[in-house]
Every structure is written in C-alpha cells, then in structure tokens.
C-alpha cells in the first residue's frame, strides 16, 4: 500500500452512501481478486454491476456484464476499477463524462494509482480513492479483517451491534 492516507470517516461515508457499484475489470475467473471482491460486496448487500468488454452480454454472479460504463442502463454511485494505473485514468475520465448516472465515487483498487486522472475527476466533482480495496476496507472498518490478525486501527469500548447484512441483498 502506498503512502496515500484516507480518513476512516471518509471511507466509511463512501461505503455507507453507496448502494450500487460498477466494477470495471470484473472477472468470471473465480480465483481472481475482482471475483472475490464482487461476491463479497454482494454478500454485504451492495448491487455490483460487472463491466468487462471481453465478457459483455454474459451473466456473472447473477448480473449482466456490460462492455463499458456508458452501456449500463441503471444508476450507480461508485466505479470500482480493477485495471492497471494507466487504463484507470481513461475509465475515470469516462465516469466523469457520464456522472449524471448518479456517479459520486471513483475507487481504484490496491496497487492502482493515477494522480492526474484523480485530479481531473475531482475537478469534475467526484470523490476519488486510490490503492485501496473496498472489500478490505469494509472488512477492516466493520471488524471482519481483524479475524485474520490485521491491524484494523480501530479502538473502541462500545458494544458493537451484531453484524447484519446491509439490506436483503
């Protein structure tokens, strides 16, 4: 993970406001990280719409795969990018151009970072997170990652409410 720092409140706010995620680079190969993340986020109640030109039109984990963001007929709040840093720039620009689909957040995955594209997207009014995984951040903020010995950096003496699925997703 790079030296980028994001406040927990910012990350949590994004995860709480988001209902639908367009996942660019979602793979039907079930041992790929994108497949893990899609399945995990679905289990937490998010709708995840896969975007992958090579698999466009097929079904993936109960959703239709689209060739690009513009082809998605529904509204979505987050674009989660599983592509290299260079390609991520183009996708962020694409998202900014169609932000009336409800897009508020660009999220680039672990190891993916494109500072110029991030600045352009921010000028266009989008919030950008880079070099993080929403699955890992969700697990960290809500306690599941601690089960694997990860330092969640969370301290609290409050009694947690029992983990619920967010919605009946």
């Amino acid at each position, binding site marked *: *993970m790079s030296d980028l720092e994001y*406040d*927990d409140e910012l990350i*949590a706010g994004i995860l*709480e406001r988001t209902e639908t995620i367009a996942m660019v680079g979602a793979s039907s190969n*079930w*041992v790929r*990280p994108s*497949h*893990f993340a899609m*399945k*995990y986020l679905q*289990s937490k109640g998010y709708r995840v719409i896969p975007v992958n030109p090579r698999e466009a039109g097929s079904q993936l984990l109960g959703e239709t795969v689209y060739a690009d963001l513009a082809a998605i007929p529904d509204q979505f709040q987050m674009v989660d990018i599983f592509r290299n840093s260079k390609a991520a720039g183009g996708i962020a620009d694409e998202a900014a151009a169609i932000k009336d689909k409800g897009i508020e957040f660009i999220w680039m995955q*672990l*190891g993916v970072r494109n500072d110029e594209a991030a600045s352009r997207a921010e000028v266009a009014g989008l919030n950008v997170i880079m070099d993080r*995984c929403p699955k*890992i951040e969700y*697990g960290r*903020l*809500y*306690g*599941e*990652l*601690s*089960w*694997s*010995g*990860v*330092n*969640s*950096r*969370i*301290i*609290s*003496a*409050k*009694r*947690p*409410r*029992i*983990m*619920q699925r*967010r919605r009946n997703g």
Partner: protein
Amino acid sequence: MADRGKHQTGFGFETRAIHAGARPEPVTGARNTPIYQTSSYVFEDAEHAADLFNLSRFGFIYSRLTNPTVSVLEERVASLENGRAAVAAASGHAAQFLTFFTLLEPGDEFVASRNLYGGSMTQFGLSFKKLGWTCHFVDGTDPENFRRAITPKTKALFLEVLANPGGIIIDLEKVVEIGKDAGIPVIVDNTMASPYLHQPLEWGADIVIHSTTKYLSGHGTSMGGVVVESGKFDWTQGGKFPSMTEPEPSYHGLTFYETFGDFGFTTKARAVALRDFGPVQSPMNAFMTITGIETLHLRMERHVANAQVVAEYLEGHEKVAWVSYAGLQSSPYRELAQKYLPKGPGAVFNFGLKGGYEAGVHVVETVELFSHLANVGDTRSLIIHPASTTHRQLSPEQQIAAGAGPDVIRLSVGLESVEDLLRDLDQALG
C-alpha cells in the same frame, strides 16, 4: 451496518496495549476477551463454507487457521509494533518456522547475526539444513558482515537488535540499508526488547518475530510466538519470492500478494504454513498473553529500572570480573542503546565471576530468591549458569565463542523489591 469504532491514530501505546483488537463481545457484552475454546465453527450454508475455504470472504472455519481469542492477540501485537498484520504460533520457534517456510524454497539461503538466542542458532544451523535452507551466521556487531555474506540465493537478513543474552546491540538502520540494497526483507526477533522498548518496523525492518513466552505474556505462564509484517515490502522485486507472487496450487492458483496486498505475507503464512504444519497457539495461552500485554508498559519500566540497579551493584562487587549490560557507562553499546532503546536496554544480561566455573555453580545453587531455570522475561528474577546447563554439551572453546564461558552467569531481572534482589546476590556471592 454494525457500529464502527474510532481510528486509532492518536491513541498511545498504553491504550493500545489494553484495547487493540479487543472490543466488547457483541452477543453478550462480555468486556474481557472470551476464551473461545472451540476447534471449529458452524457454516451458514454450503456457499458460505466454500467461500471461506477459498479465502474469498472472512470468517472462522477451524482453529488450526484462526480462532477469535488468538486473533485478538494477533491484532494487538500488530498494533503495538505498528505493523499491518500478524499471525500467532505455538511458540517463538514455531513463529520463526512459519516465517522461513513462507519465504524460502529448498536451496535458498539467509544471513543471521551470530548474536542470537542459542535455540535459534540450533534451529537455523541444524534443523533448517535438513529442509534445504542454509543459514550463514555472521558477527552482526559489524553490519557490513551481512552484506559480505549475501549471495544470489539469499532471501532474508535476521537479527536480534537487543540480543539474547543481552548486552549487545546491533545497528539496525545499517542492516536495513543492506537489506534494501539487496531487495530482501530484514527480520528482527524483538523478544528481548518487547515493543515497549524497541519497535523495529519504525527503523525500516520488514518483519518482526516474538517469542511471546517472554515479556509479552510476562508471567512465565504461556508459550507462544507471533509474526508481524510491516506491509511495506515489495514482494515482486527480483522474482525472488515465488510463494508470494506465483499462483498457489493448494488454493486453485490464487496469488497471495496480488489478492491480499500488504497483509499477503501473514495471510500466506497462516493459510499454508500454519494450515499444513499446524503449530497453532491455543486460545488459553492467547488469553493469558493478551492479559499480560495489558500491563507490558508498567512491567517493562520496572524491569529495566531493576536491571540497571542490579547491573550497577554487580559492577562494583569485588568478586565480579565484568558485567555486560548496555545501560552501564562502561558498555561499548551504550550509544546504540540510547538510539534504539531509549527507555532502557532490557533486563537480561550476563556477568562474569572471577572464581570461574566453581564460583558460577556455587552462586546458582546458593541464591534463594532468583529461580534457577532456563527462561527469561518473567515477573520472577531468573538465574542460570550456561556452562553447566544449556551449553554443557559444547567444548570449552565453543562455550566461550557462544558467550557461555565457564565464568558466565545470566540474569533475567524480575519485578521483586530490588533491595531483596541485591541482598540475595550479596549472600550468594559471599
């Protein structure tokens, strides 16, 4: 959504020693961490089970992999070392095994400082050899010796900054520089210092190992070990670490570094080495160790304060030839101690008796309050005469090379009233 706690930035060491990893139990509200004395965990359905086995979601399967009491210990030590993640093991030696099994392939090498706990020298030099791993031992007091021993097959550098048995301090920053130049991780056994006195990751080390048997559990009750990763090492460099960057056959070709990123090393150590060799820490021992850690800061302060008084007393005693404690003005390591261990250079050290072997045996047999045994880092003060016990099998030359000559006594200074410790040593020295 469940409640979140606050980010720990800004929380001090003492707060984290008490709270990190341990929120109240959500179902019952139990404030202390329950001892989850269970081997296994019920699945929600077949899909949930499959996802857990494939590592595609987080959760408990079987306590050879994860256990909720043990994971509190893991997160707590990761927090105290300012690391990204940790995996616990049955002992310090098991933690070392998990680390090297995850790093090395048969035929690989690593370089270790010779100023190590003797048991680590045996593990690295003899038992690891049978697995096809070669350890080159060097005199770490000159860090350049690490560089000289590196070959294309070298995959790691290993050292104790505050070395057991005490008195010697290795210049970690210089070793870190050498590790960076070679593109290999620097591993520090931080057992003797504990994270209260020294935090190797802050100086650029990549992995920290503890025998939690010592100061972390702190009361001589529980065996245990922990491996902590910084999350900052780039495992792709030089193609040296296929176990991190190549598909893992026992997980359908999953690649650990790509999938788990900055906690990929401990995840691999758990998912493969711990799963397949099985040296897990028991929930009971994890509970004892978590409880011990809650007072680590208080105990370490008193350990080093008492050690300083005892070392100064011995240095002034007419029957004592020398005292090797980095807190003494006379120590050649005093400057390095102030740099790396500003709160005190631990509480385990050696001293030499003018009377040699006979005098050594006499002292360990005559003390009343010091316990004659082979351990360190207990609330109780401990004493041993290595030449007649732990190093008895070695020749006199080997004993001297190992810092265990006939005149050497090792102390682990405990938390008793320091006047009582001095009186006991006084009557034993005669």
